[in-house]
């Protein structure tokens, strides 16, 4: 034990041995999209940040699709400082969008309660989004647009649509950064066009473009 002060009439910082510290990291991003033309399996790379072995718990909830659409372990073990892949497999081959939330965290170890002491324990959880599905091929018929003080885009299709939005001036100069968009069925993105914006061009991963006039709807 690094140090322990209890029972004194002074503020005390309790330092628990590293064996009681369970910390986990996710190494390869928090969102994983598997297009329907690609592999059904994927990996979430995990790292134990501590010296001692930890138990990693994995909770998942399929938000779009059926529970059995995603196969993923509910628990794995990691040795001290070990890096290891948490493998998952999509058990579906249709064209529809599928989405699962996956929460990974180390099994918590609670410290002992002490008199007259508030002990604050930190747990770290990672919330990941896993997606599978075909890309939308007809966005011009599945994207609806509303204009108020913002541009509100709604995806009404059944697949996944990925695009970049770029605002332009009336003479065709891009203004402001591109805005990445990722749509699931029913998803809404709100874009706040910059001043002097005349139109917005949406270009998707398949190279399809949609132009949306904006000038008459400026603030």
């Amino acid at each position: 034990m690094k140090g322990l002060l209890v029972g004194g009439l002074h503020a005390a910082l309790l330092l628990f041995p590293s064996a009681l510290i369970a910390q986990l990291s996710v190494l390869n991003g928090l969102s994983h999209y598997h297009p329907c033309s690609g592999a059904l399996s994927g990996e979430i790379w995990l790292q134990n940040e501590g010296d001692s072995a930890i138990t990693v718990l994995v909770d998942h909830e399929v938000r779009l699709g059926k529970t059995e659409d995603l196969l993923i372990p509910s628990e794995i073990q990691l040795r001290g400082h070990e890096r290891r892949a948490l493998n998952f497999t999509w058990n579906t081959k249709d064209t529809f969008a599928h989405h699962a939330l996956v929460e990974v965290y180390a099994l918590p170890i609670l410290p002992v309660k002490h008199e007259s002491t508030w002990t604050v324990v930190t747990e770290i959880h990672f919330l990941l989004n896993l997606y599978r599905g075909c890309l939308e091929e007809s966005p011009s018929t599945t994207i609806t647009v509303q204009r108020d003080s913002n541009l509100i885009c709604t995806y009404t299709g059944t697949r996944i649509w990925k695009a970049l939005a770029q605002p332009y001036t009336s003479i065709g100069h891009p203004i402001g950064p591109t805005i990445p968009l990722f749509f699931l069925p029913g998803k809404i993105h709100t874009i706040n066009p910059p001043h002097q914006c005349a139109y917005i061009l949406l270009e998707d991963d398949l190279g399809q473009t949609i132009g949306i006039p904006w000038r008459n709807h400026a603030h």
Partner: protein
Amino acid sequence: MLRVVDATAGPSNTLSFHVQAPSLAGQPFAPIPSQNLYLQYTSVKGASPDNLRQVDVEIVGGSLPSGIEMTIAPSLNGTGTLGNGTPLTFSGSTVSGTLITDIQSAYTGDGAGDGALLTYSLNYATQNLDAATSGIITLRYTISNS
């Protein structure tokens, strides 16, 4: 990648605040000194929707008695787009909030004193304390896409 460390850059996920009795009758309990942890992280943004990350904090175990507040104040230090930190105060029914938003590609360093400094403070008034004012509070930090 992310870890919580103490001032020496050693992994640490526990802080204890010892309630100090006054030395003379009639005095109030002295304030408890604040304590620090550091959130060290490396983040490389991906394609949307993994282009922005955030850190939410929630009390998931134990509870703060009425009249006692806990504040976590972040101070972000490092290189890149570390995000925007907002102090959180927990009390009564307020048990969750977003601590850091808009993390993109950045790193904080991994040495002593590197990272997002998290200052934990417990604030109370003596008249609100009782014999049961001790216990374990579990804070869940959740890292997700914004």
